[in-house]
């Protein structure tokens, strides 16, 4: 078992207890592994999870690839920005918000800044339509966005 895995051994054992078999715990185990590894899943981690849960590596790969919140083999920046681009946010200018963020961070959607501080992604409806346009950074929501608000938030998060 790799170092990262041994670190979260107990946590994994605890979730395994909640499920009838290994396979069904795959999402929880993926989440724990990703968190333990600083936000992304490595090839080795996927392989180890497969061995642990008695699954085929490609099945674990497929489970992880189905959900946008797992990142496979792509390290994320320290802060992960998710901009909602679904209908309510789009009607209120999500496209513009995305373009603005791309300019401010000098990256394209899907990329990470050179200093590894920010990763920019888009998301489908994050369930906050009433305060559209909105984005999520790490675990927090930022709502009713405007350009100046974005400047403030980014500065606070350490954008130089």
């Amino acid at each position: 078992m790799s170092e990262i895995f041994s670190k979260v051994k107990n946590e994994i054992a605890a979730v395994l207890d909640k499920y009838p078999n290994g396979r069904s715990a795959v999402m929880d185990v993926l989440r724990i592994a990703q968190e333990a590894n600083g936000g992304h899943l490595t090839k080795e981690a996927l392989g180890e999870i497969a061995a642990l849960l008695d699954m085929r590596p490609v099945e674990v790969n497929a489970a992880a690839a189905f959900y946008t919140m797992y990142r496979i083999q792509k390290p994320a920046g320290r802060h992960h920005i998710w901009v909602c681009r679904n209908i309510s946010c789009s009607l209120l200018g999500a496209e513009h918000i995305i373009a603005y963020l791309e300019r401010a961070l000098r990256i394209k959607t899907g990329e990470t800044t050179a200093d590894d501080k920010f990763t920019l992604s888009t998301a489908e409806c994050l369930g906050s339509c009433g305060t559209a346009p909105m984005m999520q950074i790490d675990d927090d929501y930022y709502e009713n966005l405007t350009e100046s608000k974005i400047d403030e938030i980014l500065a606070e998060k350490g954008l130089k």
Partner: protein
Amino acid sequence: MVTVKINGKEITVADNTLILEAARDAGCEVPTFCYQADLMGLGSCRMCLVEIEGQKKLQPSCITPVLHGMSILTDSSTVTAARAGVLEFLLANHAMDCPVCDKAGECELQDMVYKYGPAKGAHAETKFKFHEKDYVLSPVIIKNSNRCVQCTKCVRVCREVVGVGVLGSVGRGDHQEETSFLKGLLDCDQDGNCIEVCPVGCFMRLPYRYKARQWDLKSADTVCPYCATGCRMVIEERDGVVVRARAQHGVGVNSETLCSRGRFGFDFIGNAERLTTPLVRKDGVLVPSTWEEAVAVIKENLSAFEGSRIGGVASPRLTNEELYLFQKLFREVLGSPNVDSSARWDSSGVEAFIKAAGMNEGGVSVFDCMDSDAVFIIGSQVSEENPVTDYIIRRISSGRRMNLVIASPRAMKLDSSAQTVVRHNPATEGALLKAIILTLNENKLSVSAGINAIKETKLTDCVASSGVSLEVIKRIADGLKNAESISILVGTEFLRFPEGIDGLDLLKDVCRKSLGKKLRILPLLDRCNQRGAWEMGVHPGFGTGYRAIAGRGMGTHAMLEAATRRGLDAMYVAGVDIASMYPDAGHAREALSALKFLVVQDMFLTDTTRLADVVLPSSAFAEKDGAFTNQEGRVQTIARLKNPPGKAKRDGDIIRAIGQSFERSFGPDNASLVFDEIRREAEMYKEVSLVFNNKRNIDNKLDNKEALVKASSALARGFSAWNGGAPSSEETGDYPFTLMTGNHLFHSGALSSNSASLSGLLRAAVVEISNEDADEMGVKSGSLVRVKGMTHESDMKVIVRRGSKKGVAFIAENFADTPVNRFFSRGRSGARVSITRLG
């Protein structure tokens, strides 16, 4: 039964029939992508939508069963519009690169769009691309995901039929890609079934890449030349070069599946090393010659010897017609009783095996076997020796309740389908079977002679020597007792170690006579026409159709013994590389060198041809007509696709030419006349139908029973049983491993080592050991080790197999650089070895 209306026509079908199948039965066409008869239903592509009167939404016919009174429309305007819509969406992101796609011309998407598609798509978005360039998944598989229709047949066949499961659907929606783990290289069986089921040009054969258009190919219906599963396949050539082998859905026992050897191993045919001219030894050197000269030299030399001092060995890969002529040449022209068809197995063991397996009772269909309550596989590494038999067993056993037991020292892929997996010690099949019989006998079976024969045998001894716990043996015995019908699938381990055969013979009697079970025995053989070779009479103990013969001749083993003692003058070897297959390389070489005259007929220069006085260039299966008899006793024809290279001749023509140099009338003249003679000579073949049944038949889908050989009553004298004793107990101290051999998934015998594709999958021999031993030795797959036996040692890489028996090592037969037979002594395909880690 339920009655439904399809497009107004009434039809009665079995309960739970899918609408799709009912419609097809009624002769109505329904297009599909994701449906495949032998795979789990999915209903994802929506190509098969039909209208059911009274229901507003269209229903996928491939997963909806018929209900009584349904009225179904398969080509209403709503259905037609829906199909066009589905195709429009499939094309939305499709690469549309037909001009450079290997599949063009035989692509289901092309055909479907041509027939049902919209004239124009309404999508204006830029197409999503998975990747720019096609990517290689293995030495034989290349992938282009931009053409995918996401039917997931590749994923399902790999998991459900092949049992490997290295493919998955990765991603979601239109970004879903059917591929390997992180798109990496596949460590898998390399059978290419994913290629065969793919309706479009996503999974493609790498060796066939850009080689031809489907309409450029000339094809022939044939049978795979490797193992005796007898897979039907089509081989195709362009400009005289065979470029592809493929299977067809619903044809042959294999339907659309083949293994790596069948699908990729045909390229030995076009190998530049093929022999193209006869060679005659002059002043110690083999020099090119003419057929006239070669045959004259053979005639002159063979005439000088007494028949009984001439021996013949013919390959179990020749056709029935050729093998029949071969034994006829020996018995009727040369006056020699010495014929055999294997360099590996002792002929008396073969005889005992045929008797125990009841092969003279006629053909046994694998599908009938899989209909039994209990299926017991023993003495076979079926997943590797007979891969498609493994697929058939996996597929059928997953769909019905049965008690599947697998007994083998080595772990295998099929273990995961079994209820009970047994790991006995190598070469102890007999002890294991006797332990089972003694357990069955606990509550006193009605006495049969056989039981008496082993009543002195102690259960505890059998248990100890087999290395299997009493509890497991009880479980197997109970399983047999509780089953009404039993099938035993027995493999080549019984031929390598014939001392196990009497156990099998006895179990057969006990099951049938004492327990009153319906019992079938299916031999699992590793050469395409091994059964045919025996049934044609290429054996020193019996004639064509297992008929009794006057005097017993020598088998390969005895011929080699005799040769070293100067008791045999000449041999004629057709297609067998005795020097590299006989268990004990040194002895074989010495014996062949001691002969006064050696004729070898082969496609390639082998260790055996190098020792010959005359070498005759022969032909591949693709170059001849004839029939093979598979392990079930199914007689299937092969058709000629091309001519042999250079001056090479068909094996049958060579045998005939030699025969005619002695007797002008030797024949018959062509394969079909020879087969007529076989029908007359062998009762089993009298009524066999050679008609190629190209359709699924209704009773038992792929099971063409007309092709099975019938029971023979010719066995008047009976077969002699195995008379060799058990091996002397071997010293184990310095040599802790038992070395076993057999076929590798990618290699079996002389053909595969001449296939570039198969050699690309595995070039050199490896030694396989269990994970327990590997952990103890601190080695991993890929580590270098030294394998040391009493007579030979060799360095090679290790492969770790999880779940194999501790203390068992395996090296596959026939790797030129590491001939495993150098470890063996005198006819025994097993040895004690030590394995030490290097570096």
